[in-house]
């Protein structure tokens, strides 16, 4: 293959941060698709515009999801990327890999695709970047053979993801990995066969630090939390000061609820005022441990701006115990999806539907009680609806 001239992209090979151009060139060395991709990207850099056509629908047998169709608008110049579809491969929960599995994935992709990937996509899939239409099915066959399956796309349940949680983190209040994997396996059908009004994302963080950005990037957010007193090891607190932490200034003063007192010797926490923000615990992992009763706060509605503006997820269950087989959780997910399915317009995310029909209506439909934890503050407008049963029958 003739090496393409890429004067613009070449300028991105320098610098200390690893260069994607280097990877593209590496792949281009042995893969004509990668080479044409490089060429087309160089053209985009020159033209300051993308050169992909609006996606088309492609897929594997029995699935409606997992492959993103893509075609070049300059197949004349770049015939090898005339069709250049990505395969979304569901990652092992927590993005843990044994290298043999990862190598199998690479082998499949060298056989069928461009040799380029994203590790990972921002929903969490291993993204296999670019193959031709006729390779999709064989590639899928080889993937499942290698133990992998596709993730979600389109109006389906998207690949759920979870923080590393109990795999490594002392702060895990729930088994984020197991919950995520369990959901993933239970809802395979919903991932692969788009049947919803729009996409539906689930992300699981095992504590309020929310290391998978669950609250911002999923329709259904599961975030670990606790009840009970923060356990204090006063000796370790002392050790923290010894190593330079200014407990008054860095911990107590930044506690959002100002529920901590430090007299230079003893740290006191008024737990009934604590909102479990994690700040003090983050700063003193050895000295402080979360309360002993563990569970999750369930929130719904998070999403990016299209259509009605971005939303952060909203609390709908302040505390739910999460233990295998997670029936209460999965049942709630199903009830919510059913309601959304029934009332959602095409391309209307769950949060938007709740916004449109009202939290009140949503709660009643899915059978959840209203609690003050659901709001930052009660309503300010007087436009209150009453249920028929609140009203005295007319006597006029």
């Amino acid at each position, binding site marked *: 293959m003739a090496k393409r001239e890429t004067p613009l992209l070449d300028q991105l090979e320098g610098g200390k941060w690893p260069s994607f151009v280097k990877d593209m060139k590496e792949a281009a060395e042995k893969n004509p698709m990668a080479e044409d991709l490089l060429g087309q990207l160089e053209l985009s850099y020159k033209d300051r515009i993308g050169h992909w056509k609006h996606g088309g629908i492609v897929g594997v047998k029995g699935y409606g999801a997992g492959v993103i169709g893509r075609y070049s608008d300059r197949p004349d110049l770049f015939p090898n990327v005339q069709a250049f579809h990505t395969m979304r491969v569901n990652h*092992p929960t927590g993005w843990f890999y044994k290298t043999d599995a990862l190598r199998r994935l690479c082998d499949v992709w060298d056989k069928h695709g461009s040799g380029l990937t994203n590790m990972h996509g921002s929903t969490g899939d291993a993204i296999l970047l670019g193959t031709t239409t006729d390779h999709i099915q064989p590639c899928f066959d080889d993937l499942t053979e290698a133990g992998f399956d596709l993730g979600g796309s389109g109006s389906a349940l998207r690949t759920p993801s979870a923080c590393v949680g109990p795999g490594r983190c002392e702060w895990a209040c729930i088994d984020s990995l197991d919950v995520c994997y369990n959901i*993933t396996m239970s809802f395979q059908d919903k991932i692969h066969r788009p049947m919803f009004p729009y996409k539906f994302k689930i992300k699981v963080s095992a504590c309020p630090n929310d290391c998978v950005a669950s609250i911002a990037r999923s329709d259904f957010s599961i975030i670990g939390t606790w009840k009970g007193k923060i356990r204090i090891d006063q000796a370790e607190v002392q050790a923290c000061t010894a190593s330079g932490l200014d407990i008054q200034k860095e911990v107590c003063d930044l506690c959002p609820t100002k529920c901590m007192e430090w007299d230079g010797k003893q740290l006191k926490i008024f737990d009934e005022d604590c909102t479990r923000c994690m700040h003090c615990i983050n700063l003193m992992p050895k000295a402080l441990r979360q309360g002993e009763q563990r569970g999750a706060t369930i929130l719904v509605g998070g999403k990016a701006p299209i259509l009605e503006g971005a939303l952060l997820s909203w609390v709908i269950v302040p505390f739910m115990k999460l233990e295998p087989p997670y029936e209460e959780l999965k049942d709630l997910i199903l009830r919510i999806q059913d309601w959304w399915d029934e009332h959602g317009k095409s391309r209307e995310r769950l949060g938007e539907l709740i916004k449109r029909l009202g939290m009140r209506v949503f709660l009643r439909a899915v059978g959840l009680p209203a609690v003050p934890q659901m709001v930052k503050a009660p309503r300010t407008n007087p436009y209150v609806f009453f249920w028929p049963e609140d009203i005295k029958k007319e006597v006029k």
Partner: protein
Amino acid sequence: MAKTDIGPPDYKTMLPPVISRNYGKWRYHEIPQPGLLVHTAESGEKLYSVRAGSPRLVSTDHIREMCAIAEKYCDGYLRFTSRHNIEFLLSDKDKVSPLLAELESKGYPVGGTGHSISNIVHTQGWVHCHTPATDASGPVKAVMDEIYDYFVTMKLPAHVRIALACCLNMCGAVHCSDIAILGIHRTVPKPDNTRVPNVCEIPSTVASCPTGAIRGDMKNKTITVNDEKCMYCGNCYTVCPAMPIADPENDGISIWVGGKVSNARSAPSFSKLAIPFLPNNPPRWPEVVDAVKNIIEVYASHARKHERVGEWIERVGWERFFTLTGIPFTDKHIDDFTLATETFRSSTLFKWE
């Protein structure tokens, strides 16, 4: 016939033995140096995680190189993080230094922990998507080259999380980032009336517009766009391919600041507009690089310890943010979408600058 619905490999088969043994029983962690996490279990066992930066767009050969390293030092166990860094998972303390040395020799930046700037969550851009207003990997590379030092050290007041999305769909975590780089269009889509009737469904195209700028023209089976009401979001194009929106002269990048995701101290919050527009200047987007660097430096020199970008700005006030960064405030910064009034100042409590 392929198996279907087998799901992903069971993560339990991917865990290093030290994790399997201490699963859910971790006691605390330390970060002795940037990029090195040491987790100690209740059992006393320790897990060493070495975090290395990745361009995310990686070739299979690059992955195989990671695998080789993991096999050499980590019994073949590694993971990726939610920000696309690589983590080498070691149980043997003695292998940490040699690993670090090898990573350095191979050009892997080690860092992204604690009060650093971690990897930039980003998207496809011109590499694979159909709606981008800018590239993704290119600006990310250009910015990371410039702020590299903040990745490999932990000298900032707090975590700084940067994200990039190449269009308003915001596939990155842009809407809740300390600093967000967002591709934007600035011109109205041009419906191709010859194609609309064939490729687009009129009602869903009309419904796709957040500001109601699109009207159906049922007679001609097409649509018209009210230029005054269009704010170039591109959502109509997603639904109706026959109304392209990309415009090389006017597409570019906007910069957003002050979002966060964690519940630590303050509630999660959205990023807010800092710079409405910077030009697309490939291959290295110098205006964008400078803008991001400026914000980071002003933040680094003014924020208090543990204060995220947004927390710092909330404390000093947006008036002060614009003064300190020298970024001009314009009418574009003032919201005019559906919740706009919530952002207007309904008090006399502000600073003069």
